[in-house]
């Protein structure tokens, strides 16, 4: 499987990354090389192998539904590039 420039451009859009034309050029070549290398995984028969998403037997971790200390609002909003009252502010979405 290979990857062309249009696919890279579309994937960058999905990832919400604006690429400059030169970046798109370089990245397309590099991703092609990397995916070419990754293709060696096709050699292995994995029909009867189950996937590992976690190396530990992970379970849901539950806690009592009781109020506990949370992050202070003011401190948390200090990192916001733009805020309004006690909210993060974003460009207008609905006219």
């Amino acid at each position, binding site marked *: 499987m290979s990857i062309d420039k249009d696919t890279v451009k579309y994937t960058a859009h999905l990832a*919400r990354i604006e690429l400059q034309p030169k970046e798109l050029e370089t990245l397309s070549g590099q*991703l092609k090389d*990397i995916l070419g290398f990754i293709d*060696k*995984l096709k050699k292995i028969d994995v029909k009867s192998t189950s996937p*590992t998403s976690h*190396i530990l037997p992970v379970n849901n971790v539950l806690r009592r539904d009781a109020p506990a200390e949370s992050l202070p609002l003011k401190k948390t909003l200090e990192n916001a590039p733009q805020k309004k009252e006690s909210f993060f502010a974003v460009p207008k979405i609905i006219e």
Partner: protein
Amino acid sequence: MEELNRLTAHELIESLSRKEITSEEVISRLNQRIKDTDARVKAYVRFDSSNNPAEQQSGAAALPLKGLPISLKDNICTDSLNTECCSMILGGFRPPYDATVVKKLKAAGALILGAKTNMDEFAFGSSTENSCFGPTHNPWDLECVPGGSSGGSAAAVAGDEAIWALGSDTGGSIRQPAAFCGVVGLKPTYGRVSRYGLIAFASSLDQIGPITKDTRDSALLLNVIAGFDPRDSTSVNEKVPDYTQALLNDIKGIKIGIPKEYFIEGTDSEVKTIIKEALEKLKSLGADCQEVSLPHTEYAVPVYYIIATAEASSNLARFDGVQYAYRSSSRASLIDMYKETRGEGFGEEAKRRIILGTFVLSHGYYDAYYLRAQKVRTLIKQDFERAFNQLDCIVTPTTPTAAFKIGEKIKDPLKMYLSDIFTISVNLAGIPAISIPCGFTKKGLPVGLQILARPFAEEMLFRVAHTYEQNTGWHKMNPRLK
């Protein structure tokens, strides 16, 4: 007095407890050393001696790390103290809370240095060249990389600009720089140390671990940072032993496996010779060395670059110009604001990994890439399970070569990825591993010996590493940095 910065943490703890020295003396000597040498090494970012350390701790004198400074990688959150992952997109970010490891360190009396150590942006890299602050230089040869991504931590410890440090390891990011800089680097078992407050790269692989001047310090630091944390749902509720009790000078009868797949073509012949000498040393100390096979080793790098980038693409979605630090100034719609913020704020390698990760998870490619990689991950894990049925530990080179030159691999990402070929399997299998210095190339660059053990068998790593150390002394070598 002059040389306080060169001492190990356990030596300093002893002198501090006997009141032969004061914490202020240690800090002032360390700050002086950083001022003298860091313009060349560049192990730290945002160094400002006035806030170094950020806060003095008060409290009982009996605390185990009372008054002892520690350096942290720039991806470990510290309350109100800049933590930027060496990325423009997090420029000026001050976390509103301490990572669990930081809380534990403070509770033990440790002082957190205000400057953080340099790293590849978001831990994406093997050379610390992908930092928005510029590269760190290897104290053994300033033209060489210190390894990465925890290159700042490793260079600081090697150059005596830190007593000890924490790094994080997703595919070798503690062990590879430790090997390149001639210091001790430990990646604990997945789940051993809480990841709460570690800015996530790949959540199923990341672990925080110590970078130190010797094995005793590594054990001492793990004692403090290990343990169950309800805030990390993957943290394991397994008893934390006193790891210093494992520091025996005795490996008689210990069964060591030597995987034939780690002595392949492409490994530097000098490195091979040095590792073979180290193995002879272990044999002469009574270890029972035998060949073992880990047949899926060659698939570790491709599996890793699917799984790690997939997880990264998801984790880094949160940096969108809304909650954290950087937002692009030119913006029309919300979507354009996201795209421009991320296009401007992320460096080259971060963009490459996010896009690759998005691709392998996207519709039509998921089964062929991501799901297949997860299946091969199972096979890699089973290789180790089989091996550890017969063995106490496995010994390999940490890296196929010693430190390479700055600029040598940066334009060829695939070549850079292959420099992690011996460290990546460990993260995929979740097992612990340590890298210790075991010799030098003719050019005077350090070489690392990697020891691997079964999950939660860190004590075995410490035992073998300590025994080797006590009978060689490579860890006592210092770079000639004036």
